[in-house]
């Protein structure tokens, strides 16, 4: 059974991080260069961590499966990044950002982690501006802000609808600088396929070169995973096609606990599915809810009528009706479930009935078309490209889609997993968003972890490892891990099945979306837990992977990732079944208030569930880390 000590430092909430920083052991500058650190992934968390560690003097090797670190999917984040700067003089503070994030997460995250996140949020904006991130500005030259869901202050910094892109290019420029200076060794198109544990500690990884197919072993004093979320387990999502869970899943199979996998975020405003061939769902930024109004017809009969012909009185602006104080800016989980509910009632719009309107008519009247274009032009362009419709003249049709995973590898306050030496950052860890992430908080967390948390906390671990104690990459553990990777590749290629990889991924996605999506039931989850193992068996009997191991082989890459999703999907459902409550993005129909809101059970489930692998065919172990709320009282979320 894994030991889950959160290592949250003692003392008053607002002093914990400051005091902890003063207490962490340091590595002296001359010794830093004797330590090698592997960073896997170069999104916001990975790129910021790799460059910051290199600047401190550590030797860093960075591995990315993309052809360039600039392509990591952080690049696609549209809306913004939160920070408690209170530039708007509207009552924001570190405490309020902390509180909003904790409440938004439905009281399922760690107080101390979230408070630290809010504290360093202000440093992130300073850092990004210094790097040249072209945030939106007022005419006076100072930084502009906008509002986002789950908050009643304007604390979101943005760069048009491409904030993630600009922040990632900032982190990428820092990474490029350190690569150019010879401080970081970059390995592009290199996919981590296993974690190597030596004497109970993470000491290396096994990597496949995606161009040549060559497998290589890499040893280090510590391993940092910043490999993103696992939302593509649903197949259709707003993730990039390449986003995958392989690094965290293989670490899980080496003993790292996976926490709260059932906390998945379904984003309310995405472009609806159009056909079976579809490979990807596209997000329409939450920022649109600042000016767009969400509605469906009051009467079922009106759902196929042209929206302009439906009189104001026949429209149901249901978020404004149900949540008058937050209105269209209520948190994502709540907005998604409300959309599902009105569609379940038969009032959904569009051919499939799975859509609601996001209407800008009021905004166009108020701001003019030019004003709307200035704020959201690129989003309206994307909508037009995909649907061939103009949102300036007719409302957008939108529907919820899988967007983010709050669950991830379990980490302590130092971002270290239960395997010493294995650190996990950004979306790949579970730590800061509880059961629901607020908009504009993912970018904040990725950069907080990489720029301002890990550079301090990793020293505390390395100081316990004598310089030069790093094992060689030809030890028995390395050879065994390499052999298991090679064996899996060979098994996939040797299979003479009849179905392409995509066939299984689509079917898995369908099971999860229907039975473990926006609403979950005991019966549905039990059904999924029968279907997924059967599908996995079918995959291994019937998958057809063309090509060979020693070439550029995208089918092989995808096969390995889908094989992992077929295992992870089962754990996701198991976690959802065991958590007999509703909280945030995890909605169990059995546990709701009469008005359809989440009914938490703090007494029995006010904890983190961290699953521990027990070997193939054996049920995993459910470890528990209690969430002790010392400073905030867990209460029922209210956005009404």
């Amino acid at each position, binding site marked *: 059974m894994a030991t889950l000590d959160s290592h949250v430092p003692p003392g008053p909430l607002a002093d914990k991080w400051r005091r902890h920083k003063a207490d962490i052991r340091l590595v002296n500058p001359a010794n830093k260069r004797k330590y090698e650190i592997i960073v896997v992934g170069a999104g916001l968390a990975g790129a*910021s961590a790799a*460059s*910051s560690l290199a*600047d401190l003097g550590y030797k860093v090797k960075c591995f990315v499966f*993309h*052809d*360039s670190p*600039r*392509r990591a999917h952080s*690049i*696609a984040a549209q809306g913004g990044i939160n920070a408690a*700067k209170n530039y708007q003089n509207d009552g924001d503070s570190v405490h309020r950002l902390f509180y909003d994030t904790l409440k938004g997460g439905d009281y399922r995250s760690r107080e101390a982690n979230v408070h630290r996140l809010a504290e360093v949020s202000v*440093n992130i904006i*300073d*850092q990004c*501006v*210094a*790097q*040249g991130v*072209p945030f939106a*500005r007022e*005419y006076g*030259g*100072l*930084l502009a802000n906008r509002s986002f869901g789950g908050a009643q202050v304007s604390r979101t910094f943005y*760069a048009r609808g*491409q904030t993630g892109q*600009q922040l990632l*290019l900032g982190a990428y*420029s*820092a990474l*490029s*600088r350190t*690569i150019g200076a010879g401080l970081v060794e970059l390995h*592009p198109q290199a996919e981590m396929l296993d974690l190597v544990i030596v004497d109970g500690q993470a000491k290396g990884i096994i990597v496949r070169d995606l*161009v040549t197919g060559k497998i290589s072993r890499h040893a280090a004093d510590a391993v940092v995973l910043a490999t993103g979320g696992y939302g593509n387990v649903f197949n259709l999502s707003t993730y*990039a*096609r*390449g986003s995958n869970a392989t690094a965290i899943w293989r670490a899980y199979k080496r003993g790292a606990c996976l926490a709260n996998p059932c906390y998945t975020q379904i984003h309310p405003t995405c472009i609806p599915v*159009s*056909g079976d*061939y579809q*490979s*990807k769902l*596209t997000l329409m930024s939450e920022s649109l809810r600042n000016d767009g109004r969400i509605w469906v017809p009051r009467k079922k009969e009106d759902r196929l009528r042209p929206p302009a012909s439906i009189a104001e009185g026949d429209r149901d602006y249901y978020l404004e009706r149900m949540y008058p104080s937050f209105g269209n800016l209520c948190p994502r989980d709540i907005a998604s479930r409300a959309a599902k509910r009105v569609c379940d009632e038969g009032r959904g719009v569009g051919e499939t009935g799975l859509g609601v309107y996001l209407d800008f008519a009021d905004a166009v009247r108020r701001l003019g078309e030019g004003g709307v274009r200035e704020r959201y032009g690129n989003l309206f362009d*994307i909508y037009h*490209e*995909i649907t061939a419709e103009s949102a300036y003249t007719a409302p957008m049709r939108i529907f919820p889609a899988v967007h983010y995973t709050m669950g991830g590898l379990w980490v302590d306050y130092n971002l270290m997993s239960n395997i010493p030496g294995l650190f996990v950052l950004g979306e790949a860890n579970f730590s800061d968003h509880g059961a629901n992430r607020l908009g504009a908080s993912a970018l904040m967390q990725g950069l907080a972890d990489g*720029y*301002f948390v890990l*550079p301090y906390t990793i020293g505390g671990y390395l100081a316990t490892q004598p310089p030069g104690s790093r094992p060689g990459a030809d030890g028995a553990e390395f050879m065994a891990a390499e052999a298991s990777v090679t064996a899996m590749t060979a098994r996939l290629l040797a299979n003479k099945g009849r179905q*392409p990889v*995509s*066939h299984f991924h689509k079917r898995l996605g369908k099971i999860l979306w229907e039975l473990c999506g926006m609403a979950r039931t005991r019966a549905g989850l039990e059904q999924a837990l029968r279907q997924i193992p059967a599908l996995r068996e079918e995959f291994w009997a019937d998958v*057809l992977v*063309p090509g060979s191991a020693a*070439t*550029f082989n*995208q*089918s092989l890459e995808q096969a390995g990732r889908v094989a992992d999703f077929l295992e992870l999907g089962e754990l996701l459902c198991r976690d959802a079944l065991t958590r007999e409550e509703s909280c945030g993005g995890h909605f169990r129909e059995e546990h709701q208030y009469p008005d359809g809101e989440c009914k938490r059970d703090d007494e029995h489930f006010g904890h983190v569930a961290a699953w521990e692998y027990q070997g193939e065919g054996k049920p995993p172990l459910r470890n528990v880390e209690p969430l002790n709320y010392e400073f905030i009282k867990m209460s029922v979320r209210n956005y009404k």
Partner: protein
Amino acid sequence: MVALATPRTLSVTLRVWRQAGPGQPGKFVDYPAKDLSPNMSFLELLDVVNDGLTLQGGEPIAFAHDCREGICGTCSCTINGKPHGPGQGIATCQLYLRTFRDGDVIVVEPFRARAFPVVKDLVTDRTAFDRIQQAGGFITARAGSAPEANALPVPKGDADLAMDAAQCIGCGACVAACKNASAMLFVAAKVSHLGLLPQGQAERDRRVLAMVATMDSLGFGGCSNQYECSAACPKLISHDFIARLNRDYLTASLRATFQPEPAGGGGAG
């Protein structure tokens, strides 16, 4: 204008460049695809063709793709002779079949440039772009050393113009579109983005000299002012930035000649 009725389905022939690996001979191969939805994206068509090829025991077409929403810059096909295909201001992944007509033959090739060698089929190696960035495409600002963000006002016009340049997704369409395979629009975008901001002034000369020198050393050509780059750019980045690059380069070169940087060196112990 009379709206044309959208056909329910269409059939096309893909004429695709197949090349087993770097330096190997390549050729075009035809793949018919039938009864396609006009709402299907071009990359989804490649997915469908690839699943068909897999089932027939063939080798799927290798193509680069990731975000499929026009921002990561991974996708990189030249379609009917145009990088990212017909349409303005979009990447390959944002191209939908409704753009084509029933019966069309669609020619698909990789981005072609000496500095972007073919890896396989439609996939090219664009690490040259990363190397240009590593040479100088940054502002040196270590985490922990940044001043308060609002201590440095940036006029809105400058910030907006910097953002216009900063939108570059690093796809390489500009290079593929240019008869000289020039990377000047790519370099100009980064040099302008950082050079327009007050934070970027300290390294402005050093940046432009280093990036241009690296660009030249990697086999990219020069600009002969035909602006195919801007026309092909999925973010429609203006060639005006190339003029800005040239001006920065000239000033920096003159300053480097007449006012060489001091030798610097370590501080007193």
